[in-house]
């Protein structure tokens, strides 16, 4: 059985010669199906670069990254886009909903790119909104929603394609502590009840505590990798 994500000795180098920056300097990491990892580290530690690679937004300078057994370290832009379309979901710090577009339409967008027919698209988007508890706000515009609600719409949008991994980049960074906890509970629930794999970047230890596993980066390397709660036993779908 292969792991969901297998990363082996990945390097990411920006610039050349004297201005060379080693953003990632030999990182190896596996992520199991159904895991929930929190990536931590000070700014400049390489955690954002790592997330960009994990999210197929960027390619490593060297090393191997396999997602569901498929090597994607050397794919071109368009193939990476297709991978993101079908395998990944994104949640950002700034919510990043498309303005003047209703919550429902925001959730439909990934399905639109997948070419899902209109009826099914609408049903699945509504279903995703229901899973984050916002079915009654489907026709609200982002500007009519609170920060916590916007982030939940963003999570619904990430969920709607049933991705292999949801990547969350500081998902609570713009929220107060009550809303933050709400979002984290939602992520935990999605992870536990629906076995959705989540990789989250955060610099708040309180938020990281919700994860099963905490990975700490420093100077482009993993300095600590600690499992806090075991993966649920049995019921392995593969």
């Amino acid at each position, binding site marked *: 059985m292969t792991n969901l994500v297998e990363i082996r000795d990945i390097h990411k180098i920006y610039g050349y010669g004297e201005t060379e920056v080693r953003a990632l300097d030999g990182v190896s990491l596996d992520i199991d199906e159904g895991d929930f990892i929190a990536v931590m580290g000070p700014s400049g530690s390489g955690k954002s670069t790592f997330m960009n690679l994990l999210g197929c937004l960027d390619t490593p300078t060297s090393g191997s990254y396999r997602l569901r057994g498929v090597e994607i370290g050397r794919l071109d832009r368009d193939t990476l886009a297709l991978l993101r*379309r079908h395998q*990944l979901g994104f949640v950002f710090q700034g919510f990043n909903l498309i303005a003047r577009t209703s919550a429902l339409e925001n959730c439909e967008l*990934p399905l*639109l*790119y997948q070419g899902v027919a209109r009826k099914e698209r609408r049903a699945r988007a509504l279903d995703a909104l229901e899973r984050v508890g916002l079915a009654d706000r489907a026709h609200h515009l982002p500007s009519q929603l609170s920060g916590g609600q916007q982030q939940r719409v963003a999570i619904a949008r990430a969920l709607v394609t049933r991705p292999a991994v949801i990547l969350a980049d500081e998902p609570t960074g713009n929220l107060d502590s009550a809303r933050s906890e709400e979002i984290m509970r939602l992520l935990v629930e999605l992870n536990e009840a629906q076995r959705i794999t989540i990789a989250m970047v955060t610099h708040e230890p309180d938020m990281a505590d919700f994860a099963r596993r905490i990975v700490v980066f420093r100077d482009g390397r993993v300095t600590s990798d600690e499992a806090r709660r075991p993966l649920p036993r049995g019921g392995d779908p593969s």
Partner: protein
Amino acid sequence: MIGATILMALTAVRRNAMRSFLTTLGVIIGVASVIAMVTLGRGATASVTRDISALGDNMLIIVPGADRRFGSSASARPFTADDVRAIREEVPSVSNVAPTSGGAGRAVYGNQNWSTGLTGADNAYLRVRNWGVALGREFTDAEVRSGSAVCLLGETPRQKLFGALDPLGESIRVGALSCEVIGILESKGTSTFGEDQDDFILVPLVTFQRRVSGNENIGAILVSARAGVPTRDAQLDLISLLRQRRHVRPGDEDDFIVRDMQEVGQLVGTVTGVLTTLLGAIAAVSLLVGGIGIMNIMLVAVTERTREIGIRMAIGARAGDVLLQFLVEAITLSLLGGVLGICLGLLGSWATTRAFGLPFVPGLDVILGSFLFSALVGVFFGYYPARKAARLNPIEALRYE
């Protein structure tokens, strides 16, 4: 997938309805002016053609003088009654032959007077020019032969001299000639060239020669080609007869002109056609300017929506998807402008042709042409901004503030 992209583009256009409208204004004005110019130009052409055929469909005018392109020389010998007789007898390709002679004079009735044209001719003149009598009667053969003091009034002198009064049987004076009004001609109105076709008085040719000009000269001969005979054939027959009668040596230039009015009509049509094309081309330049406006706004939109582009790319849009979306947006804007411009142009040219009394001839070719052209403008000016959007790096686009 393409359907979805188009849907997204349309949504974006609708989301910014006001700005979209202002952006398309340039294209609207461009397309509207192309349509208006061409439609007006064609209306003018149609009007000229109509005037020429109102002169008489298959009419040829024979005047003395060498063809100098611009008018004829005045020194050439006029025609005689024998020339007219010869044409009647020896040229089978013409049907009506109308010798005329003309001048001008002041027409007086009671205390009203009016300066007008005075033409000497017979009833054949009315046949050739396809002109009817609205009131009263034509000349009788006896009146034509004897040179009686009778006249037919055009609509303009009738109105100026008689107003609401009944002119029939009244006596008017034109210069030194006193004559009785026996009929009123139908009104032909003003020609496209601004000439009042109804402003003249018709008397028998002999009357004109004896009482006004004092000679037997014939200034011009109007003939109509026999039905079914090409005017060109009649023209050649007339030229060869008249060369012979007027002793023009072979190789010498004609000392008379046989003008085919159809030919004149075609020439005028060509000139107005060229003008129409020219005006249309100038208007098309404003369409290009409209396209630049679209490019400008699309560039702004790409910058403004950098984050949105980043989100779309993260969600799984390929460069091509983003390119297509922005291209479709630009094309939608320009086509929208095209449709609105077509409506505006047709409306404007309809109102203008109404105001100037020109025929309204909307052409499907111009409408389709400017529609396609505006689509092309969208593709051309939308491509650069769309490519700029497609080339964005998703990581940087997501971080863009």
